[in-house]
């Protein structure tokens, strides 16, 4: 075949490939590459959203890391939630999933009961939790008090505010329960039978049969959980505002991250800086920190996952 015909064939083939890829390429370019490049660009600019951006170099980065008093508390809180809340949700979701798969009667009722809270709008669910856990008038502390147990300050106490948010997240664990339940039902029964014939205990069957089979799902739950927690915004904001008692009014200053900055998360800073203080440059810096953290966690977990699968196999 002549060289020019071959070249033309390859060119057509390449064009065809690009044509088939074009929807993805356009989506990637418009919704990922361009915004990402823009975010990096604006992180180096002074820009209030109205005037013309002016070059500021690394000034915004220096401000966020050295002079913005809310950044480090928000980062610490976000990391705390990533480590504790995500772990608790995965363990709890898996536990509920296991429980539901073992129940013989009324399975549908229990599945519905555990899944329903997930459907509650975040603002409504958070409001309900703040009222339930109100240390002065809430029923939870009334019961604890009646039992002679300590009554925490929950959303009004910096030590307890994040555990209270974790409790709220556990209440809405229905999404993970459904995913784990599907994975658990997918584990081949023959493997359990073989393990039982080998005289294994329940824990050993879970450790050496169940866990290896569902490990990709566990990893999926962890990775998506980490990313969702990086975006955690509505619940801590609503809880902080309502519990502080200052929900807005002429001349009022509400406390960010009430109590004592303990519910402040990085997405709240993006909003505060970008949309309330009109400091888009600094908001972009925080958005890039979030992006870097999400990438780092994902990369770390994906690397760990490889090892887990091998062990399971």
């Amino acid at each position, binding site marked *: 075949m002549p060289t020019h015909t071959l070249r033309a064939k390859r060119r057509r083939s390449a064009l065809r490939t690009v044509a088939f890829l074009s929807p993805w390429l356009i989506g990637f370019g418009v919704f990922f590459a361009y915004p990402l490049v823009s975010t990096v660009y604006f992180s180096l600019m002074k820009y209030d959203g109205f005037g013309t951006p002016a070059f500021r170099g690394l000034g915004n980065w220096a401000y966020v890391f050295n002079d913005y008093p809310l950044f480090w508390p928000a980062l610490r809180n976000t990391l705390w939630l990533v480590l504790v809340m995500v772990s608790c949700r995965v363990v709890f979701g898996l536990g509920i999933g296991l429980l539901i798969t073992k129940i013989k009667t009324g399975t549908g009722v229990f599945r519905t009961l555990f899944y329903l809270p997930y459907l509650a709008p975040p603002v409504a669910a958070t409001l309900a939790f703040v009222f339930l856990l109100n240390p002065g008038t809430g029923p939870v502390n009334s019961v604890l008090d009646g039992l002679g147990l300590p009554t925490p300050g929950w959303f009004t106490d910096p030590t307890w505010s994040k555990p209270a948010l974790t409790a709220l997240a556990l209440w809405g664990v229905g999404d993970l329960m459904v995913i784990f339940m599907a994975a658990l039902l997918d584990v081949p029964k023959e493997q359990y039978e073989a393990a039982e014939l080998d005289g294994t205990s329940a824990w050993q069957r879970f450790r050496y049969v169940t866990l290896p089979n569902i490990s990709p799902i566990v990893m999926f739950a962890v990775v998506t959980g980490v990313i969702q927690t990086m975006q955690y915004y509505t619940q801590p904001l609503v809880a902080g505002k309502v519990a502080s008692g200052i929900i807005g009014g002429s001349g009022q*200053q509400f406390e960010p991250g009430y109590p004592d900055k303990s519910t402040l998360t990085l997405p709240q800073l993006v909003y505060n800086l970008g949309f309330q203080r009109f400091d888009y440059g600094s908001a972009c810096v925080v958005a890039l920190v979030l992006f870097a953290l999400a990438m780092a966690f994902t990369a770390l977990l994906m690397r760990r996952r490889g090892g887990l699968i091998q062990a399971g196999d």
Partner: protein
Amino acid sequence: MSGKSKNVIPSAPRRTAAALAATASLALLATACTGQSESGATDDPNARTTITFWHGWSAPAEAKAIQENVDRFEKAHPNITVKVVGNINDDKLNQALRAGGSNGPDVVSSFTTSNIGKFCSSGAFLDLKPFIEKSKLDLDKLIPKPMLDYTQFEGTRCALPLLGDAYGLYYNKDAFDKAGIKSPPKTWSEFAKVAEKLTVSKGDSYQQLGFMPTYHGYETVVDHYMSQWDHAYFDKDGKSNIAKDPAFAEMFTYQKKLIDDLGGFQKLEKYRNTFGDEWGAKHPFQTGQVAMQLDGEWRLGMAKDAGVDFEIGTAPMPVADDEADEYGKGFLSGTIIGIDPQSEKQNAAWELVKYLTTDTEAVVSFANAIHNVPSTFAALKSPDLKVDPGFKTFLDIAQNPHSNTPPASVNGSTYQTTLQDFGYQYESGKVTDLKAGLEKTAEQIDTDIEQAK
């Protein structure tokens, strides 16, 4: 299974991570579509046109009141039709001002007085000077000075006041009588004695608290306290003055002592957690849980609507002992109204702004309807203004030459939030060195302002 999953799972997190970054970035990118502040409107104010007015009121009675005012305006300006959109908060407003477009508002308003610096300096609100000059309005003769101050920034008048809020003291007259207190306190030292006298303990809590002094006690925030001391937030160079002006240290010291004298921070916080919502019927002043409350003029109507079973007294908040001659002053704020710089109907928009803010009938009827303080001298003196003795207190506060509001700043209310945050630390005992704390807070305020310039 595992092998299959290996091929399926890995790409999802990456895509989700990409989506996260894309979402965060896109949200910020979207802000790149902006408009510039311009003046020199070219539209014909006599031409038939429709303008859009965004406001923040949402209660049915408030929305009805503003609509009635707009109806009167349309009757007086038959060529202009006004499309009214209510329940607009600052976040929605900011987005619209940035995005522009033909569906955006022409006339805009905000409850957040302290954002005026941001609105004026960024050009988010149009400079009204050319319109005011064209209409030959002498604002000094029309509008009280504090209200004029909080609607401009560094000489740029980008807004006008649309009614105002004045803050004073509410007190439970029945509780006063029971405690043998004849009149409301006029100085802070008198106030402390009265608050203690009105406080009735019950176990490790209270049957009645004289006054909730903490900065989370609804309106008892730092800037509302500070209005009762002679003070200056900034020096002549625009630097934070809070560590140098002794008034700030005096206020923080006084408030902390009041907390200690009334039972201590922990006990008060525990009691505060039993309070109902500030805007609901279970407000602690309305339920009798506290006997005195710093609040705006709206509390009078709200308390009556809640059906309180005691007589309510109103008075100005007390002043520093050595500033007794300034008794009668208070904190002021209010709604600000302006024009979207991207509006193509700026002259028509100005007609509405001018009408709502300077027409005596419009101001009086709106003030009567929503129980706010009128924002013009003529309206304040109007015989049509419904004034009961309780409300008169706030009208007087609004006209007091010593009444004040925090100065506008280029980064809005950020400096107040920073100072308030220090207040939380100090009142709770987490920070004990007041001088060092104020110095550090002043540095932070200066850094934040520098960042915003």
